[in-house]
């Protein structure tokens, strides 16, 4: 198959069509993201939550902590088998938990401070979204995959993402349907 030269006018039309298509798709995604955020975001008044986190090879119990923005989490942490860590992403918190001890060591990595022994750690969850807590002390073969989840509602990223995906699908259906309809009209 040899290359077919394309005239500038055809190129301009193709470019214009592609730009219009891209704009339409981007609009559908943006509308979807907005609708998703508005429809799925729910806010509830802040409250205090007492949570006991048990760490064992290679998981935490509870595996998922759900909270609302503004909640205060009163965390007690225990290790059931070996020394584990509890590094909470996004909240600058690292904890070292030793088995059979009521107290655990706490520090804030960004401040490079020393470990402080505590019986409870309080976290005010002021940032919405999903944050993983991970073991920060090598505890065995699956150590790099030992994690749990803190989900702080409203999870804008998830809701916007789901909405954007839905918008992309619906927008694509509408655009493709119109193109098909136009093509069949031209043929007639």
């Amino acid at each position: 198959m040899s290359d077919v030269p394309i005239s500038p006018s055809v190129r301009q039309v193709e470019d214009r069509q592609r730009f219009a298509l891209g704009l339409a798709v981007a609009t559908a995604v943006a509308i979807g993201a907005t609708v998703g955020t508005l429809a799925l975001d729910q806010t509830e008044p802040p409250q205090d939550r007492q949570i006991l986190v048990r760490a064992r090879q290679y998981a935490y119990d509870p595996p998922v902590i759900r909270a609302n923005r503004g909640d205060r989490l009163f965390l007690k942490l225990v290790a059931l088998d070996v020394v584990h860590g509890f590094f909470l992403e996004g909240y600058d918190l690292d904890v070292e938990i030793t088995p059979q001890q009521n107290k655990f060591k706490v520090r804030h990595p960004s401040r490079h401070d020393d470990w402080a022994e505590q019986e409870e750690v309080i976290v005010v969850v002021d940032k919405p979204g999903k944050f993983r807590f991970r073991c920060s002390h090598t505890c065995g073969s699956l150590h790099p995959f030992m994690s749990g989840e803190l989900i702080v509602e409203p999870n804008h990223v998830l809701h916007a993402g789901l909405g954007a995906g839905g918008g992309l699908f619906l927008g694509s259906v509408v655009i493709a349907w119109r193109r098909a309809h136009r093509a069949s009209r031209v043929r007639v």
Partner: protein
Amino acid sequence: MQVAYESDQTAAPAPATARRAGGRNGVDLCAAIPGLRSVLKWRPLQFWLSWVNLVFFAAFMAAGLFGSPVGSHNIMIVFVWILWWFLLITLLVPFLSRIWCTMCPLPSFGEWLQRLRFIGVWVGNGPAKQRTRFFGLSRAWPKALQNIWLQNVGFLGLAVFSALLVTRPIVSTAVLGGMIVLALGLSLVYRQRAFCMYLCPVSGFLGLYSMTATVAIRVKDRELCRGHKEKECLLGCAKGYGCPWFQYVGTMERNNYCGMCLECFKTCPYDNVTLYLRPFCSETTLKGVDEAFKAFIMVALALVYSITLLGPWGVVKDWANASESGNWAGFAIYAGSVVGLCLVLFPSLHLGAAALGRRLAAVHAVKLKAVFVGFAYAWVPLGLLAWVAFSVPLVMVNGAYILLVLSDPMGRGWDLLGTATVQWHPIFPEWIPLVQVPLLLVGLFLALSRSLRVSQRLFGELSAAVPAVIPIWGLATVVTAVFMVFFVG
């Protein structure tokens, strides 16, 4: 899979972007970059690339054998399953196609043994002096196995044991060492790169995702090849070997089975072979149910790994990690679920969507098998981007281990570069969801747009192609949403 001697896109015009870029294949990089052709034609290139790789590989194997059994403190695990995997899936395959196969150390011993040379070309004497020779039986691979089913099964088998494979240095060493031995053994019996072509579990997904790559080796002028009788690119000559991957570059339209060994650059007497730069996801044709299943397996495994390795559920980790937890009944449930998801549930959903689409299109001349295989392409960009979204956190979270093992590769308490005491700390972990969601949306967009292209090729008129593709679009959107929930929800 059929060995791609025929054009696979004869019915479809080249994409406008490709045409505009300077030809049906894209931009000729050998013409655009001075000296590139000379580099690609330089006979020792592949040897040196694979040799350097082999040196590192041998060091990793030694660390796997004699180093710490703790994966995060052993360079074998950290470099192979975190750094190499990340580079492979996020950069090498999408941008450079199967460049990994150019330098892969696994088949090197076998290839050197077949050729009885590291670099040069072994040509015959007398009447056969223009043809290359090989040590070993040089048998043809069994016809019934000339597909990627063995690669599918091999990859799925490894995936079931992934919790063991990617965390135990000794297991990684045994598996990779076993692959070298297998490749060596097969090279003595079968022609050229039979191991890479039909058995290597990595090769299977590299082939699938190389279809998306922004580079491709193709000929500049097909007419020249058609009129050229000697076919050195297939049969070999004094300058190089015939394609070790059994491909005829003169009509090659897909990257799937081009191992980028660059022999065709050396053998072509007309310099008709070149490297093209082209838009992402230019190839949209899957051939055969085996390739379709590879696409299903890869998407399903991205989901499985997201649950098993990145997820918070200890029960699933215990099941997958049965050699330590001792929960073999749980492992049986896990293995059965993984295989069932990959080989039954996901293909069934796809089949349902394809059948519904065919019914909506009301074009009964198009066979259901063609729709099933064709639409499986939707899972190629979506699967690749899902794997990228899975792999990005691996490096952002475990990047500190890379620094650690650079100084202490065996986990023996060394501090060669002064980085052995680096405190583990994830790199901007709160940004991970903001990276993953756009990646998944890009994957979905490419799945939708490219599957419409496939649908047009199958059904012709848009009035039939659009309704036909909508069920697959719906399924792709649902799968994307499921990934989002696991990643950021």
